[in-house]
Every structure is written in structure tokens, then in C-alpha cells.
């Protein structure tokens, strides 16, 4: 297959604070609902209670109501994969016959950071080894493959905040290269004290709701969730008469090679990734209907993104959806890809949550109101610690 062949997206699953499935999430986005609060599932000794976007207890997902032998991140991943595979019309029997790969992005899902276990270890107590066993059983891609009996390659991408975007791009490449009939690709991450304390220590968390691109933005809010896309070749989905919800047209990726935590001020990596993605699918700014930006709400990220989008995609409306979901780290790129496709289907984008006042330092601001989409193509992009920049271009599907 040509390296630029469009890949069909036949199913989508998504859960986060905004909703237990993709439809609920999109309803929340267009209704302007922002469900944020200080964390309920864990406590912290910070005097300030930084808000987060937690998945509420009433959302059901695999093992949520019982003590499970796999970690929350893996359970979120499996739940999203289940919704996606059902949406794609795959029967369990077919899934197990074909070569279906799994490519999932995460950060917490691959970290052995169980505080209780480690505290007991440090004290010389004799802790139960469940924490270690659970970690070893919880590699998100492996868990999905195991749960659904999938036989293709497995890959858990740990590229920090661009992991979900990267996983989808990498998964599409497996289909183009002919090693898989289909790929379950996405990202998942749970909220936990470690990342909560980590981002607060970096002084990039907002003590109120985040305001991406706003003049008064102070930082990000963390969130949790998972999203999965079912990717397959166009021939394959036509053969089984399954409509494509969207086409994954291309993926571009580049590294700033600048700093461990800060993006390059000139946005060089993002520019390179955008150029690579647009060139690969032969699109220009004129073709792009909208951009789902990374838009975390940190002063630095939003400044860089606004400058790059103004330079490379002038006039193209953009938004951040992190005011509806929080920053879900390894899941972010996948959740935002799911939202991008849903917005292409609906031919509209919600307002960029949290944005009210343009920042005079930023050349370009996101949409403030629900906006009709002009165009059949959209971009979803992510920037990550370590300087990764990842861009996906999606085209309209069969609707």
C-alpha cells in the first residue's frame, strides 16, 4: 500500500469526565458542560486543591465495581476498545480470525508507581506483591489484545502527552505496510497522585478551571480517560460493507530537540510535524476545516501553538477541548482524535472551553462560539514533554 493511502476509521470508543461514551462526550461539549472538581479518589497535602476532571463513579467501565487484577488505566482502555469494536461492527469471532494489532498510548499505565507498596518497601515491611503483579498484568495494549483475543502486534507507546496521537499514526502505518488487517489504536490514562503532584511541582497546574489560550490562563488541569479508534484499510471495510466514520489521511511527527519540559519557543517541531502531515496527504491550509489544538492552558504551550497555527494555518478556526476533559496525558491525543472525527461528522465545533479574553501576545485565538465547519478535513495535534510534536489529519468518512 502507498505510504499515503487513507485508512478508514470504522469505530470509535471514548470515555472521560465529559461522558461514558463518545455520544455523551459530544453532547457535553456542545452543551458547554465542564465537570471539574478537586480529586475525590485521592487526597493531597497541598494547601491548594487543584481541580481535576475525574471519571465519576456512576460511569461504568470494566471492573469498576470490583477489586480488579488490572490497573484502572488498562480497564479504561479495554472499555473504550469495547465501544469502538462494537461501533465498528466487529464480531468477536471475526476479530480473532483476522490479524488485528493494538497500539495504545499511555503514561501512568506503564509506570510502577504504587505509593502504598513503595512506602511499605521503604519501611522494611513485608508488603503484598499484588501491586507488582497487577502492574505486570496491566500493559494497556497487551490487556486489550488478551481481552479480545487479538493476534496482531502489540505496542504501548510511552511518548508522554503525544502518546495517543502517535499510537493512532503508528497503527495506521501497520495497515499501510500490510502487517495487519485492522488496528485498535488509541490511548488511556488514569488520574493519580503521582502525576497530580508532578504537574503541581512543575508549577503548570491551574488552581481553578483551565483557560486554554485565554489572556488570564494560568495552567492545566489533569484529567483521565481513554479513547480508541478501529482502523482498517478501505478495501477491508468496503468488503464487509462497513461505513467509514472518517479517513485517517496522514500522521506527522517531529522533535523540538530543545528541552525536557518546555516547547521550543519558535515551535519548530510543531511546524515540522504539520508540514510532514500536510505534505503526506497533499493538503494545504485551504483544505483544513478546523484544528483540535493541544491547548493545555499553560502560558508557554498556548503561546507556541497560537504562533505556529497563525503562521502555518492562518484563518483556520481552532479550539482546545481540554476545558471539557482536562489534560488526559497519554489518552489526550486519542480522545481529541475521537472528538475531531465526531466534529467532522457533525460539521461543527463547540466553543473552545475556558476562552473568553484574547491574549494580546497571541496572534490568533480559538473559536468562542459553536462554529460551523467549512471543509472535509481536520487536524488534531499534540505536544509533549521531551519535545515531541504529533499531528493527525482526518478526512470525512461516509456519512
Amino acid at each position, binding site marked *: 500500500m502507498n505510504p499515503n493511502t487513507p485508512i478508514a476509521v470504522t469505530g470509535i470508543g471514548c470515555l472521560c469526565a465529559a461522558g461514558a461514551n463518545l455520544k455523551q462526550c459530544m453532547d457535553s461539549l456542545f452543551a458547554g458542560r465542564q465537570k471539574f472538581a478537586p480529586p475525590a479518589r485521592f487526597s493531597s497535602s497541598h494547601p491548594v486543591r487543584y481541580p481535576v476532571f475525574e471519571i465519576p463513579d456512576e460511569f461504568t467501565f470494566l471492573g469498576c465495581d470490583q477489586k480488579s487484577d488490572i490497573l484502572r488505566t488498562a480497564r479504561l482502555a479495554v472499555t473504550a476498545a469495547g465501544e469502538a469494536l462494537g461501533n465498528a461492527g466487529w464480531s468477536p469471532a471475526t476479530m480473532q480470525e483476522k490479524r488485528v494489532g493494538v497500539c495504545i498510548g499511555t503514561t501512568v499505565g506503564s509506570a510502577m508507581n504504587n505509593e502504598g507498596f513503595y512506602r511499605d518497601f521503604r519501611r522494611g515491611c513485608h508488603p503484598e506483591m499484588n501491586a507488582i503483579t497487577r502492574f505486570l498484568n496491566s500493559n494497556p495494549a497487551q490487556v486489550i489484545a488478551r481481552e479480545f483475543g487479538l493476534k496482531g502486534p502489540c505496542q504501548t507507546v510511552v511518548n508522554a502527552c503525544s502518546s495517543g496521537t502517535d499510537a493512532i499514526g503508528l497503527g495506521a502505518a501497520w495497515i499501510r505496510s500490510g502487517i495487519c488487517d485492522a488496528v485498535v489504536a488509541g490511548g488511556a490514562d488514569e488520574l493519580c497522585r503521582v502525576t497530580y503532584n508532578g504537574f503541581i*511541582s512543575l*508549577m503548570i497546574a491551574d488552581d481553578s478551571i483551565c483557560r486554554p489560550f485565554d489572556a488570564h490562563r494560568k495552567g492545566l488541569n489533569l484529567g483521565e480517560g481513554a479513547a480508541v479508534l478501529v482502523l482498517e484499510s478501505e478495501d477491508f471495510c468496503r468488503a464487509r460493507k462497513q461505513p467509514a466514520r472518517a479517513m485517517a489521511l496522514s500522521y506527522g511527527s517531529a522533535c523540538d530537540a530543545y*528541552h*525536557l*519540559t*518546555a516547547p521550543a519557543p519558535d515551535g519548530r517541531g510543531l511546524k515540522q510535524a504539520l508540514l510532514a502531515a500536510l505534505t503526506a496527504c497533499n493538503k494545504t491550509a485551504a483544505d483544513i476545516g478546523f484544528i483540535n489544538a493541544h491547548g493545555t492552558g499553560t502560558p508557554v504551550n498556548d503561546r507556541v501553538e497560537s504562533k505556529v497555527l497563525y503562521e502555518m494555518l492562518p484563518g483556520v478556526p481552532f479550539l482546545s477541548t481540554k476545558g471539557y476533559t482536562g489534560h488526559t496525558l497519554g489518552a489526550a491525543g486519542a480522545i481529541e482524535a475521537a472528538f475531531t472525527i465526531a466534529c467532522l461528522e457533525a460539521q461543527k465545533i463547540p466553543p473552545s472551553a475556558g476562552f473568553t479574553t484574547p491574549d494580546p501576545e497571541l496572534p490568533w485565538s480559538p473559536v468562542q462560539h459553536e462554529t460551523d465547519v467549512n471543509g472535509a478535513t481536520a487536524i488534531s495535534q499534540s505536544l509533549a514533554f521531551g519535545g515531541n510534536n504529533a499531528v493527525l489529519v482526518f478526512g470525512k468518512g461516509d456519512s
Partner: protein
Amino acid sequence: MNTNDKLKDIIIEELNLEDLTPEEIEDDAPLFGDGLGLDSLDAVELVVQVQKHFGVEIKNMEEGRFAFRSINSLGDFIEERIAA
């Protein structure tokens, strides 16, 4: 040990500037950009170290930028907060 000397030790130790001696850090030299050449990650690490070693909180980076101009300004900032 006075505050400035303690700060120099903390900077060398906690920011891993092992090739420097305390004598090489001038009290008035800029800590960030030119001078010592610290960056944004050093800034937030220094905030944590100041909290840990002196019990003084730097609430945000506006406050931090002001305090971190030099060893002298940081030392003064800390001593003022402790006295208050």
C-alpha cells in the same frame, strides 16, 4: 551558615552543578539566562528546594522571577519571609 552560602550549596547540589564551587557563584550575578544559565526546570526545582530547606513558599513564577534575579535577591526574599 548564612542564607547566601546555603543557597549556593543547594544550587550546586540539587541542580547538579557539580563542576562549580560556591566561590564561583557571585552573589550579584544573574541566576537565569546569562550568568549561571539556569532554565525553567531549574526555577521550579529551586522553588521546591527553598520550600524544603527554608520553609518559604514561592506561590507563582511572577514571585519567583522577582526573587530569582540573583543569590542576593533570593537570600533577601527568604529572610524577609522568615522574619514576617
